[in-house]
């Protein structure tokens, strides 16, 4: 007997939850009101930053309807719940059902749009074709202007990818594991070389679309929110230095918008090839922080991992603080004179704080009270800055400085 829509929704969202990405940001502005030369009467809008419509108890943002078209798969990737050798319950949506769910969820303001991925059925092109059809029907037939993210199927033909980019805001190809050896070992049917080639082709198309053509002076729209990828953390032996190095390489070579890190999580009917571990959530968090330092704070990857002989990030303190403690000679930083690059390196200063400091100090000399009103944690920064009326010289020389920041060990009591 065919399973009900509800039963299949349960299976196919359960199967999608191991993908960390949920972003619905960074695309072009669109709406359905008929302003700005767009035809009116459709459904949906995108306004720059995405919206999280709910949060699950795992703390993750729910922004998109994240589902698989089907969890049948002819591949056998060891880390994946949908691999062909898994005994998980299988189900499949028709394209019409995916479209209906997306539109009805959207109308009730549950979601920003659709993140569609799929196991591979028959072959790559057959699967990709169905996914493209869903995106096309949403856009063309139903005038849907919300967000669409399609996970491209490995080895799908260039023509299908090209078509996907016309309808989707974002396309992604998962790199899966941080090293080629890892991919070959755990995803035997996937080839790191092909994954990188696909990323390269996507980059070329996205870049081309960014160039206004001579004749029309208008830009073509091709995946305006760019491409992203995901790496599973903790399934293989790769160190944080290796992982971050791979990310930096991907950001530079293919201009990815995001690399998502997904702590390897136990899955039902897990393959024996993999460790049965608790997902390394703290490690995942530190990797995101390091990734952030690389992209927005001017840090090089080598700097972030330099102080760590085993290439693993410090789990007890964040990587920016760890770097500062390793490089005490560069502190304290005078908030009234230091340049932007150095201000960004102060633990406790975010990019917005630095901007506010740079603006305010043109008009007055800043004291610690000013930082407090900028919502900076004075406790966190006082060892690293000088300000009008404040100099921390003694603090920065303290040999126990690190211990001031390390969270207190949990107290044990006798029952």
């Amino acid at each position, binding site marked *: 007997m065919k399973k009900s*829509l*509800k039963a299949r*929704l*349960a*299976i196919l*969202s*359960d199967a999608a*939850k*191991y993908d960390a990405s949920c972003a619905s940001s960074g695309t072009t502005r669109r*709406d*359905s*009101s008929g*302003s700005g030369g767009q035809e009116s009467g*459709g*459904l*949906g*809008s995108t*306004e720059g930053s995405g*919206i*999280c*419509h*709910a*949060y*699950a*108890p*795992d*703390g*993750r943002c*729910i922004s998109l*309807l994240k*589902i698989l078209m089907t969890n*049948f798969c*002819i591949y*056998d990737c060891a880390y994946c719940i949908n691999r*062909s*050798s898994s005994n998980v319950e299988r189900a499949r949506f028709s394209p019409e059902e995916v479209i209906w*769910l997306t539109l*009805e*969820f959207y*109308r*009730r*303001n*549950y979601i920003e749009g659709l993140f569609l991925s799929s196991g591979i059925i028959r072959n790559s092109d057959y699967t990709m074709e169905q996914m493209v059809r869903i995106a096309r029907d949403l856009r063309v037939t139903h*005038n849907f202007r919300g967000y669409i993210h399609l996970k491209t199927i490995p080895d799908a033909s260039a023509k299908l990818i090209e078509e996907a980019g016309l309808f989707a805001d974002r396309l992604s190809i998962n790199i899966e594991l941080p090293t080629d050896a890892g991919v070959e070992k755990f995803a035997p049917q996937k080839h790191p070389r092909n994954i990188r080639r696909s990323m390269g082709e996507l980059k070329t198309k996205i870049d081309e679309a960014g160039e206004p053509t001579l004749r029309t002076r208008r830009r073509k729209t091709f995946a305006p929110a760019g491409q992203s990828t995901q790496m599973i953390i903790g399934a293989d032996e790769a160190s944080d230095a290796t992982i971050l190095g791979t990310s930096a390489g991907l950001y530079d070579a293919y201009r990815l918008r995001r690399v998502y890190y997904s702590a390897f*999580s*136990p*899955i039902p*009917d*897990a393959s*024996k090839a993999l460790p049965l571990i*608790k*997902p390394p*959530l703290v490690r995942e968090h530190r990797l995101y922080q390091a990734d952030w330092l690389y992209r927005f704070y001017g840090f090089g990857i080598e700097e972030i991992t330099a102080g760590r002989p085993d290439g693993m990030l410090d789990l007890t303190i964040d990587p920016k603080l760890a770097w500062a403690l390793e490089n005490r000679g560069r502190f304290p930083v005078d908030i009234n004179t230091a340049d932007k690059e150095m201000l960004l390196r102060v633990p406790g200063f975010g990019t917005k704080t630095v901007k*506010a400091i740079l603006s305010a100090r*043109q008009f*007055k000399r*800043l004291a610690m009270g000013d*930082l407090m*009103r*900028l919502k900076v944690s004075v406790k966190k920064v006082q060892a690293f800055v000088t300000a009008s009326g404040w100099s921390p010289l003694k603090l920065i020389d303290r040999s126990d400085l690190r211990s001031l920041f390390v969270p207190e060990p949990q107290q044990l009591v006798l029952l």
Partner: protein
Amino acid sequence: MRIVLRARGDFEEWRTAARALLSQGTVPRDIEWVSEDAAGSDLFSAPASPPIGGAAPVSVPKAFLPLAESLICHSDPSRFDLAYRLLWRLQTEHALLHIRSDPDVARAHAFDRSVHRDSHKMHAFVRFKEVPASGQRRAFVSWFEPDHFIVARNAGFFRRRFADMDWLIATPKGAISWDGTDVRFCDAPADKPDIQDDADDLWRTYFANIFNPARLKVKMMQTEMPKKYWKNLPEADLIPDLIAGAEHRGRDMAARQASDTVPKFHERLHGRKP
């Protein structure tokens, strides 16, 4: 001087009063700003209506306008005083808004952040429920409880997004609606409608299954989706059970070793291309 305002998020109301006061040279500490609600209970002081007309427009830095518009929507009774004090100081301290660490500016930005956050949560947590439609277009109704007087300023967002359907968002701080032609706003408190929508059941199914019990982070969820919103979210009453069952489910997943059998279709595939 006592200035009584309706005080339900109408920027024009404050602007008219502030312009007039400024042109008369009234210093901030001489003004007592009162809302109609608060004034109504105070029978003996006859409400002085704001001085009207004759006031020349005042010039302010461009950044002041959006900041003041946002401030006026805040529900804190001191918002009008704060906005006027900024306006007053800006007449001589032209760079004031660049000094984010100034106590008045910092406070204004704190109010502004709170109003923005409230709007953002409105965009996120409004849940439409379908109601019978009278014409061709489908019709939806929502109930939301904002902290501040933000309903009118967010009409545009919902109009841009839900153009092809009729909708009404009712709140204790006013209601907005859209019928394909006009947006209507009323600042009077609305009543909570009682409506069921079957789609909520599918959404709850999705919410329960997209959650990974091996990664429980309850505090993170609650900072972003504070409990005060839960009563109007169809999915929220699932949360306690999801949390309670998580550890058990997580351990269960981890403990369940891979079975020794594989599905038939895997064997077939495997047989086909070894």
